[in-house]
């Protein structure tokens, strides 16, 4: 937790010498590019980054970023990142994971890393399909998905990632999308700035196995009607003419049309620190009647795990004195022969 010296780096400093092997046209390229763009902007030396992943298409990510990286095993990246962060709290740790890796096989680690609030960042590439194993439905696929493992349609209800993260005690929950490059950049920076576990769900298109999953959110014609761009302190309006908004009806959200019956004053102001509101926004993930929230859904400041652990260590050294082996060995009844 020492002061970092300011360094000047550029995107190319974070491009590794490895050939990128994702399918041409994969949404992962855009995300990689944004990460390589924002890393040099943080002003920290490139050797102080660590990118950790599990297994899956997205988990190849560390190989392509020229800093320290660990491509671990399926679902376990949060656990590995936990050990790294405790061993060296100065590192900027980034977990790259997919919807299978984090929501299915690694679900347990994900919820625990969220509740512990380490200062690290989780990028969930959500393409709602298993890509690397060739197309099975995933824990975020909508019910009824036809796939090679669900020829009659899946009967699995999906996870709602932001809602799960919120329930697990996450302190920074945001969503962006591979095609919205400047929005994604902004969210990545916010995630870095947040002192705590940042959970960023990134909708990512897999054109081979689930093409067009987020088309309505990215096509020029439709997206103005489907994207709800969240900005702290601003009313939650959307639509081509900014003529629609979210308001509260009882304890539920509703879409209102601004004009005769409703005015801008009826529209709810986004408060990223309001957990109940965060919960309501998270609920909209799969609901076609509502726009999809993009941006910071919820944010909260609280002490990080590593800060509290190191406090205990320092206090212990102060109160007991620096550990001494000889003293330790003699701390019970001894006798001489």
């Amino acid at each position, binding site marked *: 937790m020492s002061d970092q010296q300011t360094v000047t780096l550029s995107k190319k400093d974070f491009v*590794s010498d*490895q050939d990128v092997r994702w399918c041409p046209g994969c949404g992962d390229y855009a995300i990689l590019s944004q990460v390589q763009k924002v890393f040099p902007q943080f002003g920290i*030396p*490139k*050797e*102080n*980054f*660590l990118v*950790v992943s599990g297994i899956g298409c997205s988990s190849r990510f*560390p*190989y392509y970023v*020229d*800093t*320290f*990286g*660990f*491509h*671990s*095993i399926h679902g*376990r990246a*949060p*656990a*590995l*990142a*936990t*050990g*790294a*962060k*405790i*061993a*060296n709290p*100065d*590192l900027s740790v980034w977990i790259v994971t997919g919807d299978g890796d984090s929501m299915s096989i690694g679900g*347990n*680690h994900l919820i*625990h890393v969220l509740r512990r609030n380490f200062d690290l960042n989780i990028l969930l590439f959500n393409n709602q399909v298993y890509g690397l194993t060739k197309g099975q439905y995933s824990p975020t696929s909508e019910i009824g998905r036809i796939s090679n493992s669900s020829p009659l349609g899946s009967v699995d209800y999906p996870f709602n990632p932001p809602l799960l993260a919120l329930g697990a005690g996450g302190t920074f929950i945001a969503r962006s999308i591979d095609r919205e490059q400047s929005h994604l950049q902004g969210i990545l920076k916010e995630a870095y700035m947040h002192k705590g576990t940042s959970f960023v769900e990134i909708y990512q298109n897999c054109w081979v196995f689930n093409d067009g999953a987020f088309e309505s959110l990215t096509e020029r014609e439709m997206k103005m009607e489907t994207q709800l761009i969240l900005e702290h302190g601003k009313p939650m309006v959307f639509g081509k003419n900014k003529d629609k908004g979210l308001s509260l009806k009882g304890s539920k959200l509703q879409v209102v049309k601004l004009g005769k019956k409703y005015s801008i004053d009826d529209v709810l102001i986004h408060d990223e620190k309001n957990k109940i509101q965060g919960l309501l926004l998270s609920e909209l993930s799969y609901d076609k009647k509502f726009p999809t929230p993009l941006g910071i859904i919820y944010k909260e400041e609280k002490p990080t795990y590593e800060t509290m*652990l190191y406090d*205990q*260590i320092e206090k*212990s*050294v102060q*109160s*007991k*004195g*620096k*550990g001494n*082996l*000889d003293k*330790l*060995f*003699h701390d*019970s*009844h*001894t*006798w*001489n*022969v």
Partner: protein
Amino acid sequence: MTNKSKSKKKVDRVVIRFTGDSGDGMQLTGSRFTEATAIMGNDLATYPDYPAEIRAPAGSLAGVSSFQIQFSSDNIGTPGDKLDVLVAMNPAALKTNLSDLKTSGIIIANKANYTNKNLKLSGWEFNPLEDDSLRDYRVIALDMTRLVSNAVEDMDLSVKLISRSSNMFALGLVSWMYDRTLDSTINFIKEKFAKRPELVEANIRALKAGYHYGDTIEEFQHVVTVSKAKFKPGVYRNIVGNQALCFGLITAAEKAGLNIYFSGYPITPASDILHILSGYKNFRVKTFQAEDEIAAIMSVIGAVFCGDLGITATSGPGMALKGESLGLAIATELPLVVLNVQRAGPSTGMPTKTEQADLFQALFGRNGESPVVVLAANSPADCFATAFEACRIAIEYMIPVVLLSDAFLAHGSEPWLIPQTKNIPKIRNHLFKKSNGFSPFRREKSTLARQWGIPGTKGLEHRVGGLEKDIETGDVSYDPENHEKMINLRQQKVDIIAKDLPPVDPSGDKSGKVLVVGWGSSFGAIKEAVNRSRKENHTVGHIHLRHLNPFPPNLGETLLKYQNVLVPEMNSGQLLLLLRGKFLIDAKGLNKVQGKPIGVDEVYDNIINLAGA
């Protein structure tokens, strides 16, 4: 306090087992008696045995808790096979332990607990204290609860409290019988109950009442004494296996100039290691109680990648969960230590009972060709040296190491010669500190250790992972020949360690009729059995393997110097199969898988069988 009124009788060794209900305080009684015995200068070994249920129904067979101690004027290695004294605080304890008592051994029973209800609960048709079913033993049946009650009658204590102090009465009585002082226990009581003076007073009175009772009653003609044992000169303390493991780890970290990162998930009988290390924050030990066994080892891998000495501890079921992660540590060639405190399996098995059936799991329990270094500790005190050795190998060879302990070692105790820390050799780590000349898979010739470049070090940025790596660059490679080279390299990394290991040197006879080869906690039993058979002029040697993978360099040729090889194990013959497979010898197994340690007599009988053949 001294015994003046009765004569003294000297013996070489005594085995006592304190048994009672889980709530009777038998572990406390046993550990206090142990400390008093350590002060007397006897050699000793202890073995606590307790139910997996935290609070089994009172008075039931399942709820019996016991603590066994052997103390002697000789050097001993086990808590003893047959009991001289059985303290049985209730009928369930008598029922489950009586078969281990020597004929004409002493039973000390608290009559107050031999009620109709308790007798029925533990399956006695009649009260054994009142009929002749115990005629082969010396029975001292006392109403300890009433005797304690008399001793504290002016104190206005609850019946429950009085009954709870009866273990102190038993301790006082046994202390008198074997001439132990009460001082250390009195000090302990004063410290433990410092905030409740009435408990201090009650417990001390109960303790003394037991002690004086021995002096008074006629059943004891004499006090039994045991002379001091001969020890190597030095300063000693009593140590429990799990504690010794922690001391070994922390010493290795200091000698290697590294900090410890420890992560574990609570599991019997390994949890103590997490408890102990979490108290060493002033040594800058970082402990992390993980959400599961997998997270524990994965977080260790993360910490090791960042330059800490990483350790995790578990038992068999947890070891199974860690398998894939251990494979990752092998593939990424990172120095970490996995402690497996073995318990009876398979599956949940018998969590509080001992066994050594995880050897194959340690050696082979992963996918692919994934060799790992395997060590085993052989006694509670040896846990120190073996933990240190595990860390040394991990760090100097950049390789994961599995250390096998077991429930018997974990909770057992014995005197430990405290080492002079300044004489313990340093451990050389491979942290790479320059900013040029680094390549993550560039190796040192003598150890094949790769360079350890950690995040935060300028110029060493690199990526590792579980995919196969190019032998030169460390980049991902699917090249068929490269894969085979890497398979061979990972095996060589284990094999090369044997070069630096001390050759095996059998104790006892260097050639002859029988060689007993053991590993793990059977050490003491084998040692005593070998000594006994040699006194009867059989030519017998003993090898106890600390290094199970790789084996010491001259093991094969040593086996050939004996007509018979006997391999006692608390499993169905795992080391046996390895020795037979690797060295093509017709070794014989002594296999006992009952959740209990192997006894001296069993090993002795098997030696004599082979030696006589």
